Structure formats: C-alpha cells, structure tokens
C-alpha cells in the first residue's frame, strides 16, 4: 500500500487562498492511512468552512489512481467542479497526477505527502518494505529486502554500523542485515550468503510505463 501523510491545515489554507475549492479523497490507500478517506475529507471541509472558504463539493474516488473510474465519477460532480477554482486532492502522488491530467484547467493542490510503499503492520502503523527496484532479489535473502530496508541498500552483508540488531543511522530502525542473518542461520541457509552479489542493474528501476 502507498503510505501518505496529510499536509498541515495551515499550509493547505495558504494554498487554497480563500478561493472556492473542490475536495477529492481516495477510497483505498489514503482511506486506510486516514489521510484521504471520507472522514478526513469531511473534517477538512469543516475546517475550511469555519475559515469562510467555500467548498463547492467533494468526492471519494474509487480509487483516485484509476483514470477510467475517475472520469465517470468526476462527470457526476461536473457542476460542483465548475464552481470551484482549485481542487485539493487527498490521495497519493499517483492519484493527484491522475486527477491533474483529467482536469488540466484547474489549479491542483496536493493535500498529502507521499512517503513509501509499505506494510500495514497495525491499524495505524506502517512500515516501508519495497522500493520498486524492478529486479526482485528477495529469494537471495530469505524474503527480507536489504535494497529497500538497508539505508545503504547493501547487498553483501551489514556495514560496520550494525549494533545489537539496530541501524547506525537511527535506533528506531532495525538492521535488516541482522534479521537476514538470524533468519538464514535458523534455516541453515547462511552459506548462500557467501557469494559476492554483483552490482545491481538500476536501469530496471527506471521503467516509466508498462502495457499488457
């Protein structure tokens, strides 16, 4: 899932600049993240209205990154959209751009910052898992990814900063290499790490589109 964080209301108020605004949320990731579901969109609407900013309407797209669904749902809101000058989107960076592409004549305001592709560990806790490098190496490391979870993306073992299972850059981060080693030791597959892993083909992370 794509993890987002809502921008603070003061910043959004400044961007809206008292102009009539239409609000858009997303039924999927942003709903689960509590950054752009129905509750958050209505809360923002109320915040704007107390500041006397006209909200011409709102919609929760299903999901915002789905261009075909967006076209259909935005058509149902054509009147409200017309009355707005700005469109504030509470979705991930993908969703915001899909909407910007569909409504090029309106000023688009990003209501969130998009952080990472992550796991939903608990209802309100998310952890980064994949950086979409385009060439999955998980089978080499027992299903734990050093490319995304080691801040140096090291492929040949931990650096000198690994200490008691924690990462040197931040005690909140566990050293993924510590986990990989403990895990493979338990399985008796530690030997597999003795080969030198060659430099990665980063061109695969540069794919811009895919058609099937």
């Amino acid at each position, binding site marked *: 899932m794509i993890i987002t964080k809502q921008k603070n209301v003061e910043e959004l108020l400044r961007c809206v600049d008292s102009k009539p605004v239409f609000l858009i949320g997303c039924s999927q990731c942003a709903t689960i993240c509590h950054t752009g579901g129905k509750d958050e969109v209505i809360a923002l609407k109320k915040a704007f209205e107390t500041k006397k900013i006209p909200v011409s309407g709102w919609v929760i797209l299903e999901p915002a990154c789905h261009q075909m669904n967006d076209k259909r749902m935005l058509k149902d809101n054509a009147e409200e959209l017309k009355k707005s000058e700005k469109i504030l989107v509470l979705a991930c960076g993908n969703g915001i751009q899909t909407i910007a592409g569909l409504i090029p004549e309106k000023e688009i305001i990003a209501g969130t910052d998009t952080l990472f592709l992550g796991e939903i560990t608990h209802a309100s806790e998310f952890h980064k898992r994949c950086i979409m490098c385009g060439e999955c190496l998980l089978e080499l490391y027992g299903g734990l990814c050093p490319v995304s979870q080691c801040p140096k993306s090291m492929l040949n073992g931990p650096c000198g900063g690994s200490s008691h299972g924690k990462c040197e850059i931040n005690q909140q981060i566990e050293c993924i290499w510590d986990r990989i080693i403990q895990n493979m030791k338990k399985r008796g597959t530690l030997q597999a790490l003795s080969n030198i892993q060659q*430099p*990665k*083909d*980063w*061109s695969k*992370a*540069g794919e811009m589109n895919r058609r099937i």
Partner: protein
Amino acid sequence: MPYRSNLEKRLSEGHFVVTAEIGPPKSADPLKIRDKALLLEGCADAFNVTDNQTAVVRMSSFAGSVLILQMEMEPIMQMTCRDRNRISLQSDVLGATALGVRNILCLTGDHQSFGNHPAAKGVFDVDSLQLLQIIQKMRDEGIFQSGDSLLGIRPCVFLGAAANPYADPFEIQVDRVRKKIDAGAQFIQTQSVYNIEKFSAWMDDVCSQGLDKKVHIIAGVTPLKSVKMAERMKFHVPGTDVPDFVYERMKNASDPAKEGYQIALKTIRELKQLKGIHGIHITALFWEEIIPSLVKESGLQSPR
C-alpha cells in the same frame, strides 16, 4: 578587480576568446591528455575537460584538469550532477580549486542510459542550476549548501554553464539562460551550431533581454568529419539541429572531411559577426588535429 582566471580576464577585457575541448582517455595514461594538450597549445584561451561525457567512463575531469595545469595551460573543469551528490561535488570543488583549477562548467549531465554503464544508478541529487548556486555561495559567501561555514580559503573560480538553443520548448530557452545567470553563471558555452538561423533568433532574444551584458556567451562549433558523423548528429544526438542543406552538402561532397571543415569555417565567421557572442568553443570529436588550422584560418588567433 583581480581576475580569477585568464579566461575571465580575456573576456572581461573584451577579447574574442577561443575554448577547445579535450576529452580524457579511457585509461590511466596521462600522456593521452598531454598529447592532445600539446597539439592545441596556443590555439585556445582555455580547455574544457569533459566529465565522463555521454556517461562513458573515462579519466576524471578533475585529474585531466590538473594534468592540463601541469602543462601551464588553463583548464575549464566540467562537472556533471550524474555521478556525484552534493557532498562529493562540493568536496571536489574545494580540491580542484586548491590545486589551481580556476574555471568550472556546471552541467546536469547526460543520462547514464546513453553510456557504457546503463545499469548504473544516476545520482542527480542536484541539477546544473543548483550546482551553480552552491559553488557561487561557497565562493562569495563562504557557506556550504547546508548553511555550514567554510573554514578558511574559499574556492576561487570563474563559473560557467551550458545553453542549448535547439532544445524544446524553444520559448523557454532564453529564460533558462537568465536563470543560470541568476544562479551564478558568468560564461555560457552553447550547443554546437549548425543551424545559424535558429541560433541568431535565440541570440536576438538573449540580447533583447540584455542578458548578453550580464554573461559572456561562447558559441559552440563542432566540425563534421564524415557523412556518418553528420548522420549521427542529425538523426541520433538529442538536442542538435543539423539543417537539411548542411546534411546534403556533406552527402554530396567528394571529400566530406574537407566539406565539414569549410562548413565549420563559415559557421565561425558568421558567429563572429553576431551581437553578443564573445567567443567560440570548438569541440572536435576525434578530430582535435583540425583545431589549429581552423583557429588560424578563421582569424581567431590572436596574441594571448
């Protein structure tokens, strides 16, 4: 005021300058640089040393520039943002200026997919505009990009940037120059000129905004050595504009190298007449030996 480099001095005193490109070798052989430098000695005011141009690994521009300095010639060290982050770039600015490099050309750099290591991760931590700004602040305010202070001698350097009148969208290209000037560019070296008409239109815009008074513009010239090269430049190299009539001239020539030389000569003569052009930058790809006669015959040579 004291000039930072000979190039800055020559430009500031109103001379029409010549710069020429020296591409470092795909080896650790310093003689490869020295041989090219010997060939070009006296032909130009300063020599651009390319930074892994087209993303092909070569000797570093830093080392190449120092080798040029050792021959008592003046390098323009090219720096791209493809292979180094802001920490490394700033560190190399300190190192290179400590060793005597006095001109730096700031570029974003060709994408790694064009070169011989397409699997490499591109850095692009900052872009050419930001790099200009970073070096300018190190030099003029004594601060690093982070806001930390330099402790001691500041890098003494004359700053340059590139411009491409043939890139799209055309209407934004003059504003790109203005932005580069605002970011710290004191000289501009342009993309190689084959389409002089379009170049003149761009220069008109540059002059109408008064930008030619704020920056020294040095026009690029690359002599075409063969029909194959003309084809590559016309159809495959992004951001170059070889007009049909130039391509036809090359194709119909009995001696394409001679024709390419004549075209370059004519281009230089026309560029010299353009308002706001303060010099010529010659890039002779795999044809450096042509530069001395090109400089001489086009009347660019003057006592330096």
